[in-house]
């Protein structure tokens, strides 16, 4: 009962049966989708979906806690590479991919914990966090880019420099290897779990404290909350969520390159979150899915304006819909607004 109460709370878009009924229908449609999709289409949709946990993490961090990070792709990359190294060295063992996944998440969390300690416990001004996370991302890309050659290998896995790491094993539970439609379901379940988990978090008292920090950090601190710890913990949680996306990405494509942690990739999560609406989890899901679809459609036609269009979209949204497109639409449609008008 308590769980339902938390999921249904009002710190995200949508309450009551009028929302949950369509929500259940959409989920059901996704569950039934393999009936009419080709395996290739399911593969593409898996890709749009697998970016959602990273976006949710950034949404918690930026929208709910007021801390912007440009470095989520760094944790994405750390988790992906760690999974590749661990699972790649345990090929043939049925528990290898699971151990790799846990190691990947642990690595992302550990880097974020150390980095976050220096940043949040110093109580730096809020513009410093995005800058330093961006620098971390750039350094990681440079480092991974120069790991070409035989001396850069861990066990039997080569890091591969700019060509990236290839032949990363798919995810496996027992004897079942996830690919095709079963991978689609695996992603769907994980994404849904991440969303509902985040929704519970923001409706719990922990989430209310995050909102209080975003609104007025000093006041929250005077009320007796350790804001440094709260910000640090949210930062680590966001890194773990980015790590989930990183794991799903390498399990989806079986490869990863340093470009995945580059400057252009680093911009994407921020764009998904800003365009959707940073202070609502569901809006971020819509934004992430739609923009991934848009980006894929544009760039698969070889359209070199893809980045210009996406950048232009970001500038336009920041200028005209500072709260995000989906949030603005939701506000316009919400019954509460009509009543007050």
């Amino acid at each position, binding site marked *: 009962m308590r769980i339902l109460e938390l999921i249904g709370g009002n710190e995200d878009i949508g309450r009551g049966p009028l929302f949950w009924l369509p929500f259940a229908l959409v989920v059901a449609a996704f569950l039934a989708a393999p009936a009419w999709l080709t395996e290739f289409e399911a593969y593409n949709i898996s890709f749009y979906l697998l970016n959602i946990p990273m976006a949710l993490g950034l949404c918690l961090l930026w929208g709910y806690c007021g801390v912007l990070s440009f470095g989520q792709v760094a944790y994405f990359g750390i988790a992906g590479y760690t999974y590749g190294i661990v699972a790649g060295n345990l090929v043939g063992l049925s528990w290898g991919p699971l151990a790799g996944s846990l190691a990947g998440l642990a690595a992302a969390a550990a880097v974020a914990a150390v980095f976050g300690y220096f940043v949040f416990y110093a109580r730096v001004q809020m*513009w*410093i966090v995005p800058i330093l996370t961006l620098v*971390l991302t*750039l350094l990681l890309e*440079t480092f991974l880019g120069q790991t070409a050659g035989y001396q850069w290998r861990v066990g039997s896995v080569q890091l591969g420099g700019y060509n990236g790491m290839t032949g990363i094993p798919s995810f496996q539970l027992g004897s079942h290897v996830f690919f095709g439609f079963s991978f689609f379901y695996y992603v769907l379940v994980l994404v849904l779990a991440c969303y509902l988990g985040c929704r519970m978090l923001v409706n719990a008292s922990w989430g209310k404290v995050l909102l209080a920090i975003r609104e007025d950090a000093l006041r929250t601190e005077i009320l007796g909350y350790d804001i440094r710890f709260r910000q640090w913990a949210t930062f680590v949680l966001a890194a773990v969520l980015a790590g989930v996306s990183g794991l799903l990405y390498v399990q989806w494509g079986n490869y990863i390159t340093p470009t995945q942690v580059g400057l252009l990739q680093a911009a994407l999560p*921020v764009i998904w979150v*800003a365009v959707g609406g940073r202070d609502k989890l569901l809006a971020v899901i819509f934004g992430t899915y739609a923009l991934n679809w848009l980006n894929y459609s544009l760039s698969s036609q070889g359209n070199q304006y893809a980045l*210009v269009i996406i950048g232009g979209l970001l*500038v336009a949204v920041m*200028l005209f819909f500072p709260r995000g497109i989906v949030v603005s639409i939701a506000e316009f449609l919400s019954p509460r607004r009509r009543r007050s008008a």
Partner: protein
Amino acid sequence: MGLTGGLVPPVIAATGFGGERAMDELAVIASVLYQFGTNAAFLLLCALGLIVILGMMNIINLAHGELMMLGAYTATIAYQRGMPFWLSVVCAFVAVGIFGAILERLVVRRFYGRELGALVVTWGISLILAQGTLVLLGPFMPAIPIPGGNFAVGQYSFSGYWIGMIVVCAALIAALWWLYNRTEIGLHARATMQNATMARALGVNTDRIYMLTFSLGAGLAGMSGALLAPTTSIQPFMGQQFVAPAFITVVVGGAANVIAGALSSSLLLSLVKTPVGFLVGAFWGTVVLLLAALIIIRLIPDGISAAIQRWLERGARVR
């Protein structure tokens, strides 16, 4: 760079009548100093435009790298049309400065007081600029040959151009100091920085000050890009390589005092980077920059310039 001519001969002359060993030692010292100076000059050039804008307006311009790229492109095009190199650099300053003023009028001015919003919107601008340049002008530009030539001390060879850059940096710092402390615009700018509402009440046109400051910062970025253009390959995404050094310098320097922050931070970081870069390699030099930045902000969260500012104010109060 005509300035370097006067600098070089005394060093060589001084080594002329030493023994072989003294010559070697002098060469090592000269080499270390040269490395230190060029690293500091590089960091300062990367960060100057950024820190001018941050210090005045509390806006982080993430399109900074792309403004440097535009400066490099402007200078290259001007140079290809037959202009002398120094005039191409001035062209880059003016052109990117005007571009910055337009950018401020159209976009940036709506984000005053919203730091994170400004960060995100300037990032969108940087994507458009980099990819737009790629689409319009293609992936490559012909390089500008490094002017100034080389000379040798002992077994080490030095680039006259980089020595010239150190001099240019010193001149830039002096010019900025003069602008802020000896002109009416500088006075208005400092007043706006301290208390914008009060400055406006006293008749300072703060709106114009903000536009001029952003334009100046953009122009400085363009000029730095033009000055660094001969030392690197010129392509649409070249701005990325300046992002890490520029932002680390700014974070360490802080925004409390533009000139003191930029100068002290680039000197200190060069002190950290030079030995590591010399012994281990350029990449680890940059890693050490990030580590140093993390440790410094853990100790002084608002940057060295704030510490200097506090120290100066304490001195003033005692007097």
